[in-house]
């Protein structure tokens, strides 16, 4: 459902004469520094966003700032967290829109979003339920279990968001590297991607065959008819090609850039 919308977003807005390579998405990816600066901002904003949330979570767990009332951190530190969150989300959305179809079908992006929404749900739970009786536990060194539980959910889900976010930059488990029928293939909804890849391969093969046929046709007339049926039989082949690359290749050492 989203695949087509994102494909449109990637190809159409900003494109001149319907050429998808001139769309805003492609211009952004191809920009000399803008994409890298956005990516750097996304990563560095974690120091502000996740760094401060970590400190608040540690207080809620009763590990750090034990003598400081929770409300002090809530009032003085959480605004910084929100500022960092805004920077991270804005830069993150920009990065997503630079290559929307790829990220939409990325196993790691989907995993990241699951834990992102878990973290968000936890915030609502904490804000509207747990925080209601704040007066009872505000100054306690060891807050009650629901508070600790909320902090533990927050901390672990943000760590997983960061983990999957970092892995998104690596080429593991891309649709092209996964077998049909595996969990990852289904989880990332790879079918439309691979069908598009196969379509491109089929067209390329057809054109190649056509070119070969034309070339053959010039010197020797009787060879041309043989080339034509060959072109028709080609589409069967690419269907198997995605299975060729082993899912676990030797380390690619893309090193994040």
């Amino acid at each position: 459902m989203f695949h087509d919308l994102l494909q449109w977003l990637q190809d159409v807005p900003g494109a001149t004469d319907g050429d998808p390579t001139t769309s805003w998405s492609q211009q952004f990816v191809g920009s000399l520094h803008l994409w890298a600066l956005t990516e750097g901002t996304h990563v560095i904003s974690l120091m502000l966003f996740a760094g401060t949330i970590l400190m608040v979570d540690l207080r809620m767990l009763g590990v750090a700032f034990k003598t400081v009332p929770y409300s002090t951190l809530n009032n003085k530190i959480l605004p910084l967290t929100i500022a960092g969150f805004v920077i991270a989300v804005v830069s993150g959305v920009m990065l997503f829109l630079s290559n929307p179809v790829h990220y939409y079908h990325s196993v790691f992006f989907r995993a990241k979003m699951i834990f992102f929404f878990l973290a968000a749900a936890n915030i609502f739970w904490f804000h509207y339920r747990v925080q209601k009786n704040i007066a009872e536990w505000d100054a306690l060194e060891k807050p009650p279990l629901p508070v600790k539980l909320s902090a533990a959910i927050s901390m672990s889900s943000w760590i997983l968001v960061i983990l999957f976010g970092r892995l998104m930059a690596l080429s593991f488990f891309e649709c092209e590297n996964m077998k049909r029928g595996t969990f990852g293939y289904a989880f990332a909804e790879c079918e439309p991607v691979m069908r598009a890849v196969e379509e491109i391969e089929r067209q390329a093969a057809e054109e190649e065959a056509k070119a070969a046929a034309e070339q053959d046709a010039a010197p020797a007339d009787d060879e041309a008819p043989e080339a034509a049926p060959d072109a028709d039989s080609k589409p069967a082949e690419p269907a198997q090609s995605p299975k060729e690359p082993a899912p676990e290749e030797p380390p690619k050492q893309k090193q994040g850039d």
Partner: protein
Amino acid sequence: MDFASLFPDLKPWVQSLSHNGLVTFIKSSSWIFPSLLVFHLLGLVTVGGSILLPGLRLMGVGMTSESPASIEKTVRPWLWVGLVLLVISGVVMGMVNPMRLYTRPAFFVKVIALIPALILSFGVIRSIAARDGAFTRNSKIMAGVALALWLAAVIIFGTAYGAAPGAFHVICAGWLIVMAFGSRMTRIVLGAITAVTVVGVGIVTYGFFPPGEQYDTFMEINRWTLRIFAVLVAGFALWEFARASKTEGAPPRLNRLVGLLTIMAWFTVAAAGRWIGLGGGAS
């Protein structure tokens, strides 16, 4: 400026760093290196929280109900946790591809910025926090050395081939701090200047020197805009945090400057670190 051009004789040693069993083992697995990347990032996050809280407190913002000493003491173990994560993962990743670090200006900047960051967090802040905000002669000298080294790191950052765009993050960090904690007047003036600069330079560059046709002029205008803007932000920061404050209970100006400098130094380390991968270099 990078380590390769400063210490060309070290090349054989740097090359030999990747010839050992550990690196072979890491390369034999497809998961170890990505794990190191993740641990490096989690270390960065932990350090981020651990330096922001005491830094901001010294500037007189954030958890002002607590003493700088108690905040510094609380975050100290977490600063260590973050640093251990960063250093172990960083050194091992560096061993996998040591020539990359050796030849890239961003890594040189990162190391130069790391020195003042460590001096400030472990030397200066610890000393003044323990003395209720009072500076000893030693802590003043350390702060001065840190300032000089940080300025050197930023200047190299902003002018080094391949790494220069990353200095944008340092300017952003300073801008955000001034906009978040500066006085109302400063926020309005700096905000207006920023808006006018972005729109004005955008019109001039895209209107008269489009990057497709006059790429060099386009880049030169952007470069000088950012340099002037950096000086401007630094000026506003000094005006806000280096003059005696009229606010009741505000920390002395030297303390505020040390808080600001600590945050800026750590963000410079992070920005330069990020640019090792993003920006190219001599190699």
